[in-house]
């Protein structure tokens, strides 16, 4: 874990999700990208030749660098998806 949750008036209820098989508590209203940052998971997928690790860049839906597998569906943008109870997130950058 490298990130920290700060006092935040609008934080939602806790939701239980799994990140690469590991149980993680997130909060309703958080984007998947925010939860990945909180958990210190920055390498999300592998790039082209040499398969270098890649992570989210723009945070606003444009760059497509934050694609992860969510509930079995590949290539979902972490920055455009809110967490939900029971969500399973898989990254490929490990």
């Amino acid at each position: 874990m490298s990130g920290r949750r700060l006092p935040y008036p609008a934080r939602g209820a806790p939701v239980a999700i799994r990140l690469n098989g590991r149980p993680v508590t997130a909060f309703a209203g958080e984007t998947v990208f925010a939860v990945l940052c909180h958990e210190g998971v920055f390498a999300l997928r592998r790039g082209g030749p040499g398969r270098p690790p890649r992570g989210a860049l723009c945070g606003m839906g444009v760059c497509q660098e934050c694609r992860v597998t969510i509930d079995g569906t590949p290539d979902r943008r972490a920055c455009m998806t809110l967490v939900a109870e029971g969500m399973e997130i898989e990254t490929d950058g490990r």
Partner: protein
Amino acid sequence: MAAERFEIAIAGGGPAGIACAAVLAQAGVPGLLIDEHPRLGGPGLRDAAGAFSPFAPAWARTVRAIRSLKKEALTVLPRTGLIGIEPGPRLLLAPEEGGLREIACRRLVIATGARERFLPFPGWTLPGVIATGAVQMLLKQGILPAADFVVGGAGPFLLAVAADIVRRGGRVRALANESRLADLLPPPGLLAGQGVKILDGLLRTLRVLVSGTRIAHGTRLLEARGAGRLQAVVTARVDKSGRHLPGTERVVPAALLAMGFGFTANIEPAQLAGCPLFFEDTLGGWLVQTDESLRTGVEGIYAAGEVTGVGGAEKSLLEGRLAGLAILEEMGRLDAAGRGEITRLQRKRKALLSFGRWFNRPSRFAAACRTNWFASLPDELTICRCEEVRLRDIRRTLAAGCRTPAGIKKATRCGMGVCQGNTCKGILQEVVAALTGGPPGGFPPPSVRAPLRPVDLGLLGGDTV
């Protein structure tokens, strides 16, 4: 696929789209508001639940506008990407949950906002190098993504982000701004009546300085280093001609680099619709051409907000309202007071455009400066992150006599990947301009094609929905 009909469709649920929707909904005009994100507000606002700076009244007004929307008879489609526009206008929409939707409308307002502008440097593809805007959005969601940061790039936004990181308990080990201090200071004309913004800027500077952050201007992000993820950032001073000064390199350890070089407009939907564009570097690059009432060159299509010039939330709110009023006027549904407001808004818009020019100018560099800068970048530098096109490939194609961004795109696949070139097509234009000695707006805007977002291509074939 049968198209659903709406009197008015608004693409983009940021301040501009919301302000426009609020005007129309209050007048009882049935409209549709589309945004690809789950939450309204645009990237600058959607995560900022309640916690507004008293210095940002535009934010508070957008929130009020969002709340007022809920009471009106307006259809809001979040999590829905606009991926194509055909004459009519007819819109092709891609809901996040899959499938396609087609909308026919009498009038369309394009308010798709802006994205952050990036310039490449060695290591910019490392995980842990993220946009300044992304860091700010995380902070607004109440998450501090790391303990140690470097903030770098160009323009006035860097200081705002550094101040937010410090305020929320992070450490900014260095702020490296390629812009020079003199270019960042607002001209006196702009300061009149902006006392609150000036005070805000001074307080932010003070906060960053007091935290012990080194603020360096005329300083470049030379390299991001790390094994598998960012571990350190190398910065160096640059001279006025854009050459970095050997011996001034500093290696700064950090877990995250918040990086950005200003903003550039999301003009692609307007391009698809055939709207004429213009180029003004200090308003954000390629932009949608409009008249004073924000009508584009295509009948029935309006543009509002950052797409007409990158100028901040205040300008977007104003333009959203202006577009809404102009539409009501065309429909014969505006009284004298409304017409008076149109005139007032048109006048105020000019002042906000001047603010925009000040905001963008420090992140746009003189031709000679860019030439020296890009000439110094190494061959292995990745330009297109999706297709892994290197600077070497571009130099070779140039040397082979292909000297336009469009030609180089075809020859190298630069900008033909999954992000549709949204990250690198601006970079390619700048690199080619710099290496051939031309102006950045000297080439036609990069071409676009539907779908604007990756969708299952099978869906585009026929009657799949």
